[in-house]
């Protein structure tokens, strides 16, 4: 057991070690990298994706997924922009963005939790609906001249702290709180880990799923607002592929695709690694085509490493079910001599 505990912990923190390595490598590769302006720029760029990634993370931990995030983000962002242009109220505009994100996600939640339709299919449908809605709303035209709305994406607090970074910090703290300090947090891990067991332990599974989509809705709406403000336009075609990028960060950061495992800081680290790599490749002049290849490679390597490092344990699942009783459980006396099957699949 002690040996296994060690490797497990190394696995658990390896994402942060990788983050440090990537950071160090980047600062060696380009002297501009450590420039505070550049660093803030990196975080500003990753803010939108990271906020989306937190939403994706809570859903994946809970055993669900959201493929509609990119489209709903565009819908929410454009709706927010349009309301701002007609009302002039920043507060109303932000609330509008969040409301659209929440509304779309409550529809998702109703279909997934109440009607028990697979989240993959439901959110695929929502992706099309939200994209269609925003295109219809704008007739495919970009909404321009946003005025002070851009402050949300481009402004600085006290002249140095970018607003998106501030929002990211607040959201990170909030999601950490939610996942670690609330009953909802505990429940969502349990639901994603073993839904039937969670139900039998008195967890209101449906309510937990609604809450996960609710959280996701708030975050997607917020991301839409920040995104449009940053690019200074309401783009109905924004966010294409963002749902997948949002899934990438938690997966790189150790969230298990089969549910029940994951954490806020891993997701943040995953998003930062992707952000830093993109930034350094820009700084040293690697073209955007090659960048895509590199990013794809990172995802594959991250997941392959994850699977490979657990392979010894996973092996047993091929031949024996992760069953009760003697067959697959380690010797009690030895406390874990034999690989534990459940751990093997989803550590």
């Amino acid at each position, binding site marked *: *057991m*002690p*040996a*296994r*505990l060690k490797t497990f912990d190394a696995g658990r923190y390896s994402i942060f070690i990788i983050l440090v390595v990537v950071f160090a490598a980047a600062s060696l590769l380009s002297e501009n990298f450590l420039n505070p302006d550049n660093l803030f720029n990196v975080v500003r760029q990753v803010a939108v994706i990271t906020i989306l990634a937190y939403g994706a993370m809570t859903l994946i931990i809970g055993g669900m997924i959201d493929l509609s995030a990119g489209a709903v983000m565009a819908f929410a962002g454009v709706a927010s922009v349009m309301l701002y242009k007609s009302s002039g109220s920043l507060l109303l505009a932000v609330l509008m963005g969040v409301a659209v994100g929440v509304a779309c996600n409550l529809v998702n939640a109703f279909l997934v939790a109440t009607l028990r339709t697979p989240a993959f299919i439901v959110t695929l449908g929502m992706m099309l609906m939200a994209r269609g809605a925003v295109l219809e709303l704008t007739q495919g035209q970009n909404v321009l001249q946003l005025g002070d709305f851009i402050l949300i994406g481009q402004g600085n607090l006290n002249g140095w702290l970018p607003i998106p970074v501030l929002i990211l910090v607040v959201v990170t703290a909030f999601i950490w709180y939610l996942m*670690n*300090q*609330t*009953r909802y947090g*505990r*429940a969502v*891990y*349990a639901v994603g*880990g*073993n839904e*039937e*067991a*969670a*139900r*039998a*332990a*008195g*967890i*209101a599974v449906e309510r937990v799923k609604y809450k996960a989509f609710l959280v996701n809705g708030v975050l997607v709406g917020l991301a839409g607002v920040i995104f449009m403000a940053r690019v200074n336009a309401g783009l109905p075609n924004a966010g294409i592929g963002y749902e997948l990028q949002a899934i990438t960060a938690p997966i790189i950061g150790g969230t*298990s695709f089969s*549910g*029940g*495992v994951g954490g806020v800081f891993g997701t943040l680290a995953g998003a930062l690694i992707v952000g830093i790599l993109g930034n350094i490749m820009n700084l040293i002049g690697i073209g955007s085509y090659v960048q895509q290849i590199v990013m794809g490679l990172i995802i594959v390597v991250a997941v392959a490493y994850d699977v490979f490092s657990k392979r010894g344990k996973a*092996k*047993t699942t091929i*031949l*024996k*079910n*992760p*069953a*009760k*009783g*003697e*067959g*697959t*459980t*380690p*010797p*009690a*006396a*030895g*406390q*874990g*001599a*034999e690989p*534990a*099957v*459940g*751990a093997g699949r*989803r*550590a």
Partner: protein
Amino acid sequence: MSDALLSVQGVSKSFPGVKALDDVSFEVRPGTVHALCGENGAGKSTLMKIINGIYQPDAGVVRVRGEQVQIKNPLDARAHGIAMISQELNYVPEMTIAESFFLGRLPRRLGMLDWRHIRGEARRVLAEEGLDYPVNRRLSTMTVSEIQTLEIVRAVYHSADVLIMDEPTSAIAHREVESLFAKIRALVAQGKSIIYISHKMDEVFELADDISVLRDGTVVSSRPAAETSSDRVIAEMVGRDLKHQSYPKEQVPLGDTVFEATGLSREQVFEDIDLRVRAGEIVGLAGLIGAGRSEVVRAVFGLDPLDRGEVKIDGEVVRLTNPQKAIASGVAMLSEDRRLVGIVPQLSIKKNATLASLPKVIHGGFARPREEQRLVDEYFTKMNVKAPSTETKISSLSGGNQQKVLLARWLIADPKVLLLDEPTRGIDVGAKFEIYKIMTELARQGRGILMISSELPELIGMCDRIYVMSAGRLTAELTPDEYSQETILKHAMNEIEVH
């Protein structure tokens, strides 16, 4: 020596931090059943995994028909005539019988699967065995027992001489056990050998020619069944004198009725079930598999719907339409399926233990790690959970220890009534005894317990009263002076014979 079909000599195997097998030797004679007994963690499954090629031994040799072999993987094992029929069968539910028969070695002709051959062979072999299943039938429509039979037939077809059966009766009904045993005897008559792993002494002594007992990774004894006894084997397994049929049952003064169910019905499943449990009472619910016992407690607990009937807790009518309401009313349910409806494998012992009592450990807007640790530590020690710490992942524990954690989950929730569905299934003798002790302690605290069990000695040993169900109806309510395995079985089979 040389007449052994399979022999294992001086096999040792270590894992980080523990020696799982230490100089293990035993021999399987051709045409015999060799039973392997031992508590969970004694090393049985490690030994079987070595024989099946999943693990490599650190030292020692395996011989098949006197010839030293290196079994690198399960395919190798099959090539040497060794096949494993696992505890919980592995199969692809959507696969047909014919496909499953050749899984891993589907015959091809001209680069394409030779379906005619596949179906024809499967049909021929099934007919030879007197099984009249259509070969295109999907496995998902078959019972566990039927699939088990198929696995055995398939292993023999692929010329296995040694069949390893790990708890083959744990998931099949009483009647099916007889036909399994008949199958085993037929195989033995053909000169095949069976390595039979089981916790059930009656099965072991009914079948086995030789019995080997493992404890803490060493072979404690290995002798013909005729030269030992069930008490002796159990004593060797636990390494202490655990008197056969001794249960830590205590008579405690019974209080008021804490749990009363009247007229519980669910269409097609069970009908007109009346149950009562008094404070301090342990009540048994006996019956064959499929009698509807688990379905009754699941419905009471709100996991399944109930068509009619009334439940009273402490004399008050409650409507338990979901587990939250049941828990709030003081009812707890330990499921028979630890893996599916019990543990959350990714979470720690601690988080599993407090899952049904989150308001106790998270309140006022924050988690209360110290309160949580205190609560969990209390039961961790009390229940003698064997694990390095409460942060250990529950999936790395043995079945018995997982069960203790799940019991702890309900004790932390502090229920008035516990519905325990097969609380000792698939766990070793020592852990069973500890769970009985916990049940006794719970009764002493004035809680009511309703226990479903398929092990009659356990029901007789622990219960103040026993209800018997058959085909969805109550057929008897027995008091201790009426207890006997025969009486219970008679009532349990009551209606089945009428039909």
